[in-house]
């Protein structure tokens, strides 16, 4: 059993496990909120299989409840998930030459948390790659672990979700979750400007049909952050000790 592949796989699993402390509560919260916002339990669960991206899944649930059209929800999710292109770009040189079935499987499993573990392995062994190179098994172990925990925690949330009372105000947990995701992204001045303009624009444009206001507010926020950086010279890389993540 002690083949290089199996060893890499297990190492990937082991390094992914501690991250589940954050993933499991988030998965349960998603499951509860998706059901509370009116998705069928089956759709809520399969969203974790089909979409497999937590914040986008929450947005879908929230916008469906608010009557957003599929096209606008798609546009919004496309902006929110664009960071995955960067993960793909970062891992592409390492896995781009694997057989097609591997490329497909690893692309499907490429989430924030799996990326962190997979790229960590490629970086730490960059000087002396293992022979034979089985590091894609490390990636697979990390990705499958996350998939399993994300779907299991979704199932828990979906199961409980239908039994919880609307009087508890659980719908308020959706903006709170996004607030928790927002704070670590406010590292420097231009990022804060992007957030400020995104927030103001989304309130001003809230009455736009089909939830288009959200999509437009995201674009406005991004443009404001970039403009601020260009004109105010926000490029001071070392000037932000408080901006580093805990």
């Amino acid at each position, binding site marked *: 059993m002690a083949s290089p592949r199996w060893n890499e796989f297990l190492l990937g699993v082991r390094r992914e496990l501690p991250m589940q402390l954050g993933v499991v509560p988030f998965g349960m919260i998603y499951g509860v909120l998706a059901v509370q916002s009116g998705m069928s339990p089956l759709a809520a669960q399969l969203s974790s299989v089909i979409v497999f991206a937590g914040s986008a899944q929450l947005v879908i649930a929230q916008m469906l409840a608010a009557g957003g059209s599929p096209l606008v929800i798609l546009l919004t*999710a496309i902006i929110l998930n664009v960071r995955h292109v960067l993960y793909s770009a970062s891992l592409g040189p390492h896995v781009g030459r694997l057989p097609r079935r591997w*490329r497909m499987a690893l692309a499907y499993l490429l989430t924030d948390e799996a990326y962190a573990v997979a790229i960590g392995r490629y970086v730490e062994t960059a000087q002396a790659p293992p022979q034979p190179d089985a590091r894609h098994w490390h990636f697979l172990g990390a990705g499958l672990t996350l998939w399993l925990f994300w779907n299991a925690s979704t199932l828990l949330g979906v199961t409980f979700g239908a039994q919880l009372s609307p009087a508890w105000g659980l719908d308020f947990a959706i*903006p709170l979750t996004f607030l928790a995701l927002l704070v670590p992204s406010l590292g420097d001045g231009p990022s804060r400007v992007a957030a400020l303009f*995104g*927030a103001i624009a989304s309130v001003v444009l809230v009455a736009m049909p089909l939830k288009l206001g959200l999509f437009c507010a995201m*674009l406005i926020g991004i443009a404001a952050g970039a403009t601020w950086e260009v004109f105010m010279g926000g490029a001071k890389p070392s000037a932000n000790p408080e901006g580093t993540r805990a």
Partner: protein
Amino acid sequence: MNGTWLTLFAVGAATFAYRLSCIEFGSNLEAGVLGNPRARRLLRFVPPAAFAALVAPAIVVRDGTMLTNPLDPRLLAALVALVCALLTRSVLFTLASGMLALHAVRFLLGG
């Protein structure tokens, strides 16, 4: 087959396409769009702009109009959650503090 399923499959396909993009066409994309510093700068602003746009209206807009009551339970609870998010950077603690604050304020204000 209704709008929900259509949306799920469309977003799922788009997300998969993102994740596969540079694994399949890595060198071309990286030399092109993603190698451009301007594109990278724009991408950096996606999380703050997107998450702020998701949070703000849910807290300060009620039934289509701006909130005028500064003692609104959701507004006060959001402030508590914001402080907790700044201190802990934890989704779980932010949620717990915000929900607790919501119910505490409702109870105190007789809501």
